[in-house]
């Protein structure tokens, strides 16, 4: 067996542009956040410029990688590097969500009960006597003006109302999208590009529907439930977990949309050669699993 050389580009300008873009992004973001409420601040333009450089560079970087692949520069070994790389990247994302799920677990099982006077550290109840622990926390320990207390929460409304409950529809939409992306994958393996495009198109549509439903849910929470980031620990964990998940849905959906347009407009991918799509679909399944965890631990239990 002959050895195909491992392709190492001699030089690349992409990374330094991305590093510069990240610098602008974070300087802009930090400046903007620190200057919230100051209309004379210009930091937001730094943020925008960082985002622009980031997006444009990423486009050309991925284009270069795709072209190298089409030119046959990447050996089977290099393609395996991409496979491993994507797998470990998803693992890092799992750990990012683990931090927030860990926080949820901790407040639900330890700090809130302790503040309510239960358990070994129930002494904490002396801070705000009269606070009663419950989950969701509807009334914060210090119910003063620092918090906007919610009237309603997002938890399971009982079987009778299950179909009128937005998270149920979110679950149905997202779980089906995991199935449709799998059908797309099967179609591609069977060399049926038309069916692939259809199923992938359906998946991207479902992603859009999910994001729309999530937006409706947030609007509902802010406008009618009084549930905000300011509602204490329930609102904090609810919005951070669902918010980061929603952000990941947008990223995953965007990746799938890119794969769809590559297939439709450039006729990329064939039955044995489609890791770009496969990586995006892995990411999509990951986002789906996170939602199942969210549905269980944020909404139902």
């Amino acid at each position, binding site marked *: 067996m002959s050895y195909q050389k491992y392709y190492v580009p001699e030089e690349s300008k992409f990374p330094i542009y991305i590093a510069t873009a990240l*610098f602008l992004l*974070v300087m802009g973001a930090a400046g903007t956040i620190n200057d919230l409420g100051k209309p004379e601040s210009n930091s937001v333009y730094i943020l925008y410029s960082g985002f622009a450089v980031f997006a444009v560079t990423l486009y050309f970087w991925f284009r270069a990688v795709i072209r190298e692949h089409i030119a046959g*520069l990447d050996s089977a070994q290099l393609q395996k*590097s991409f496979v491993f*790389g994507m797998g*470990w990247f998803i693992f890092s994302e799992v750990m*990012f969500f683990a*931090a927030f799920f*860990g926080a949820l677990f901790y407040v639900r099982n330890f*700090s809130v009960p302790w503040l309510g006077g239960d358990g070994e550290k129930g002494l904490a109840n002396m801070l705000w006597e009269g606070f009663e622990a419950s989950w969701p926390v509807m009334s914060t320990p210090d119910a003063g003006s620092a918090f906007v207390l919610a009237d309603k929460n997002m938890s399971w409304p009982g079987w009778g109302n299950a179909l009128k409950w937005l998270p149920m529809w979110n679950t149905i939409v997202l779980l089906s999208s995991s199935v449709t992306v799998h059908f797309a994958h099967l179609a591609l393996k069977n060399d049926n590009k038309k069916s692939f495009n259809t199923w992938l198109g359906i998946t991207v549509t479902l992603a859009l529907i999910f994001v729309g439903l999530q937006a409706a849910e947030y609007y509902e929470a802010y406008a009618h439930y009084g549930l905000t980031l300011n509602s204490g620990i329930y609102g904090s964990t609810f919005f951070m977990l669902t918010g980061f998940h929603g952000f990941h849905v947008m990223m995953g959906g965007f990746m799938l949309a890119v794969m769809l347009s590559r297939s439709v407009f450039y006729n990329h991918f064939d039955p044995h050669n489609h890791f770009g799509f496969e990586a995006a679909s892995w990411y999509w399944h990951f986002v789906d699993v996170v939602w199942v965890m969210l549905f269980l631990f944020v909404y139902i239990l």
Partner: protein
Amino acid sequence: MSAVIESHNHDDHHHGPAKGLTRWLYTTNHKDIGTLYLWFSFAMFLIGGAMAMVIRAELFQPGMQIVEPEFYNQMLTLHGLIMVFGAVMPAFVGLANWLVPMMVGAPDMALPRMNNLSFWILPFAFFILLSSLFMEGGAPNFGWTFYAPLSTTYAPPSVTFFIFAVHIMGASSIMGSINVIVTIMNMRAPGMTLMKMPLFVWSWLITAYLLIAVMPVLAGAVTMMLMDIHFGTSFFNAAGGGDPVLFQHIFWFFGHPEVYIMILPAFGIASHIIETFSRKQLFGYASMVWAMASIAILSFVVWAHHMFTVGLPLAAELFFMWATMLIAVPTGVKVFNWVTTMFKGSITYETPMLFAIAFVVLFTIGGFSGLMLAITPADFQYHDTYFVVAHFHYVLVPGSIFSIMAAVYYWIPKWTGNMYDERLGKLHFWLSFIGVNVTFFPQHWIGLAGMPRRIPDYALQFADWNMISSVGAFLFGASQILFLFIVLKTVMGGKKATPEVWEGSRGLEWTVESPAPYHTFTTPPKVN
């Protein structure tokens, strides 16, 4: 298609490094990037060291002498952050870049462009961190552990910049680690099975796994801080149902594996150097691998030993005490293996070996004080005293930093093609060795006597040892200028090094000429 591949093969054979400054900006070469990492880390080491000098100068005598307490806090915080994230970690990543591809017989890192990105994020991140010194309200002043609410409710405005700097440092670390793991898993030369890998490679495989597992958790922690500070959430605010102690749990879930991230590669380095200069095969290779893996796994279940005094339930205190003590078992295996390797060896004491032996002895001292701190009731006494400062500086300075210096002396002939000046190297070793012990050993005593850490002033009974500690610190600091000089001198010239450099050196990196060619192993070597 094959024609394309052929012609590319042909081109590459004639390619050396590009010319000019852009070589360093655009490079995808693992050796260039390794060099960048190492020089960056050295610069950060000197900056963080200068801050340590400010701290020791202030503590030279009791009373307020040189700086304002507010500025002292900023120095303390930045010293910790810069040394951990700017000096030690990038130095190890630099060594991984230089050595891992050569040790496994790979042409380069698996993802060369991402490798460049991982590096170039760091100068920007530390520019942001350092520029916070000049912002309104000053730099972060809450200690490198940035406990809430010091880092949330009571933080200076620059904390927002700190948070985002940590975010991009984390991105850099995660990308760098993915690169290392993929290189090790996918790029090994035919015949190099996992249990034939050099121990430095093993140590980095485990380290990279830890990094990918915990850097995202740190990102989560700083994100929650950001939300608490600016967007009204109450993760770390008990008034809203959260808990400041939650911050400590999340931080140390990251932080404890992080301290092993800073020591595991040192274990790998020490194994190579002790093996070479003892002219014997390393004793207990397999047990070394299993010990490192056990330490890594255990590092996920010991985090709350940093928090014994915050009011944990009794069951948690007991669990974390026992789990922590368990780590002494695999660590002991490693120390005994190193000692056994030296036993009856034909040892010579070149500079790398001196640093490696000092590493074994002094790291063990740091390990023992760690065991003392692991005992919950004893920790109630030691917590937040200078005893803790002495403990972690023993594992970090004569532990991690000495191993990095040992590695530089050991491999610099391979990097530059020149031997370093042995006389100056030994001088540097002895000055550092004396300096580090004079600095940190007395801190055990003043800590046991009750001197609190992180305070710019102290009671009179601590005066003598503090002065001695400061003198040691100045000596240690000054001797690093000598290190810089030795490195520069070696880069510029010196006795030419042979390919194997050391009598008794083992491993693929010693089979290529010195300096190592710009591209090594473009076709994989055979490993028996």
